[in-house]
């Protein structure tokens, strides 16, 4: 168990056991925010940067509140100000340029940026977002940041000899941003590295990136790593060497087929277990989610278990996304109560066994 976990236990937490409940980050945008973005893009509309910023504030306040209402212990703003996980950051980093949309699949495109010069830190990326969310939230706020390996891998590289050196330079920038976030009060940072799933052989590069990211960050700041939709056997147990407190993994989508990967050798970090599927538009029942949480207890003891959705939920209908969060929290509290009363045998080795 990491020492920095207890700070997120709410004062009024009902059970002795504490399964930290949170989300990965993205959330469906309210339809009116999409309309505001359309208006902002429309040169004929009388809708400028100030109006858009106000709409984004309103949406961030609304969705942060929605997260709190569902009962989550640690909340986010649903990434209301972000369009896409690489574009958003590339717009804020010197050295990037945009040339137009490229195909992902079918008629789904993204503005894949090009690195045309050495990357450097310009304006802050997320401090304003964090400060606003923290100011409207009663619960602690987590900050998701796209990781340097993904920022490098999902960009065109015109300027660096190889992707690895680009990723390391970006990692130094992420470190700089996290220092600013920590100064602003942030205590929970999540690095998102979905690109690792496509190129698992590069786990050592991601590890070196994380060394740079974590350098000088105080121990009471919790750092998580989110990796989704891949063959985890190709990166485990190597990832246990990474300097992070927690791994946030997608496992519900594959019906926990990959769970055994993490049982040998023992999972020494905290596990943020995906317990609801981010790509199925039906809300899982509380009972189903409780069963999923118990799967996590086959890998780690309760002190190391965080409960979260598989991935960002922005593609789901909003009411479904909310339903999943509310049921996730209810299920976690039920499992905690069962643990308190001794009704659950924890299969995972306890930390004392180490």
């Amino acid at each position, binding site marked *: 168990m990491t020492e920095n976990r207890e700070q997120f236990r709410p004062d009024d937490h009902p059970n002795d056991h504490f399964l930290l409940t949170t989300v990965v980050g993205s959330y469906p945008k309210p339809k009116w925010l999409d309309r505001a973005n359309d208006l902002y893009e429309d040169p004929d509309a009388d809708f400028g940067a100030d109006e858009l910023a106000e709409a984004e504030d309103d949406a961030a306040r609304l969705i942060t509140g929605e997260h709190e209402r569902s009962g989550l212990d640690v909340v986010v703003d649903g990434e209301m100000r972000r369009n896409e996980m690489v574009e958003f950051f590339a717009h804020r980093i010197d050295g990037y340029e945009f*040339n*137009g*949309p*490229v*195909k*992902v*699949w*079918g*008629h*789904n*495109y993204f503005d*894949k940026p*090009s690195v045309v010069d050495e990357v450097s830190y310009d304006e802050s990326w997320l401090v304003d977002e964090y400060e606003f969310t923290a100011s409207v939230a009663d619960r602690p706020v987590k900050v998701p940041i796209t990781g340097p390996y993904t920022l490098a*891998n*999902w960009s*065109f*590289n*015109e300027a660096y000899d190889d992707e690895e050196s680009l990723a390391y330079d970006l990692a130094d920038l992420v470190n700089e941003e996290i220092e600013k976030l920590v100064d602003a009060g942030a205590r929970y940072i999540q690095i998102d590295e979905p*690109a690792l799933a*496509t*190129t698992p052989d590069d786990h050592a590069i991601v590890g070196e990136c994380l060394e740079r990211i974590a350098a000088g960050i105080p121990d009471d700041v919790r750092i998580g790593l989110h990796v989704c939709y891949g063959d985890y056997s190709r990166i485990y147990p190597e990832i246990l060497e990474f300097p992070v407190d927690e791994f946030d993994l997608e496992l519900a989508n594959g019906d926990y087929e990959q769970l055994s990967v993490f049982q040998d050798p023992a999972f020494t970090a905290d596990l943020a277990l995906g317990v609801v599927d981010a790509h199925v538009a039906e809300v899982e029942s509380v009972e189903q989610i409780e069963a999923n949480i118990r799967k996590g207890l086959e890998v780690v003891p309760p002190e190391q278990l965080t409960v979260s959705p598989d991935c960002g939920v922005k593609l789901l209908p909003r009411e479904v996304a909310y339903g999943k969060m509310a049921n996730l929290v209810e299920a976690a509290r039920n499992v905690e109560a069962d643990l308190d009363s001794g009704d659950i045998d924890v299969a995972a080795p306890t930390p004392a066994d180490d």
Partner: protein
Amino acid sequence: MTRIATTPGLFPLPDDAKEALSDLKGHQKGDLVSGDESADVSAVYDDVREELVAVQQDAGLDRVVEGQARWDDMLAHPLTVHDNVSPGGIVRYYDNNNFYRDPVVEGELTFSGDLAADLEAAADLTDDLQAVVPGPYSLADLATDEHYGDDADFQAAVADFLAGEVEAFPEAVETVFLLEPSLVENSPGDGADERASEAVDTVAGATDAEVVAHPYWGALDEKVHAHLLDADVDAIGYDLVADHDDNVYNVAEYGTKDSVALGVVDGQNTLVESPDTIRERVDWFEGQVPNDFEDVYVTANTGLFYLPVNRFEEKLRALGAATGSESVEEAEVEA
């Protein structure tokens, strides 16, 4: 020796067509090209084809492709539109951050004519037509077989299917590029390497046009390369962007056909190679191997849909310029 500027096709849609088609067709997997598109959708694709042919002609390319704008599923396209194939789940396209519908083959791979129809339309627009076709090994590799039951039988069926499609191509087709990235990405082992070569041979035998078997994303394993040389194709492609040393080694060690295709422009990076750089890369390759080539196809290594439109067009112009000035010089010398 003639240097021929060309590409492996699979072009990005023009940006206005991206929007028009996504509005007409939708974003979900059931909305993608099925082979029986509506008249509205077909009209957009007809316009796109004209635009893509014109872009290549303006760039001065020596071979002009249809553009493969309809290939929503990239190289899997000829199967995903087939009547006896169901488009399955969305799966990753090689180790790219791209996805396609897994073609699940549920019945006999009968003649389709989908590729020939697009080429007929393109033949009205250019006299330098080049067809682009997935190689049989790659197409089988990208698909799921639920009908033939045996890997070797399935690949043979895919080869026969492609041969039938190629046989139906219009006379105007001068060159056929058979794209075989799976020969590198999922290298065939003992026995399978020989069958892959035979499958390429089957498809190549279906046309009188020049046939280029073009693997990319690296160099072929030595044995795979040696077997591929047994196929009756006119040229083999070498991706010098991804791996120039091993490709030179293969040619120096095992020889190659009388003609070659050289992937010297990076289809997956926005950095635009200058015509000088392109010429230097071709010169370099020719200096490394003893061969005296008939034709050298000077090409991008991969399809170009990975790129934003502005960089795609710049790369075409660079390719055209890289061979254009040279043919002018040669013409002057001959005169």
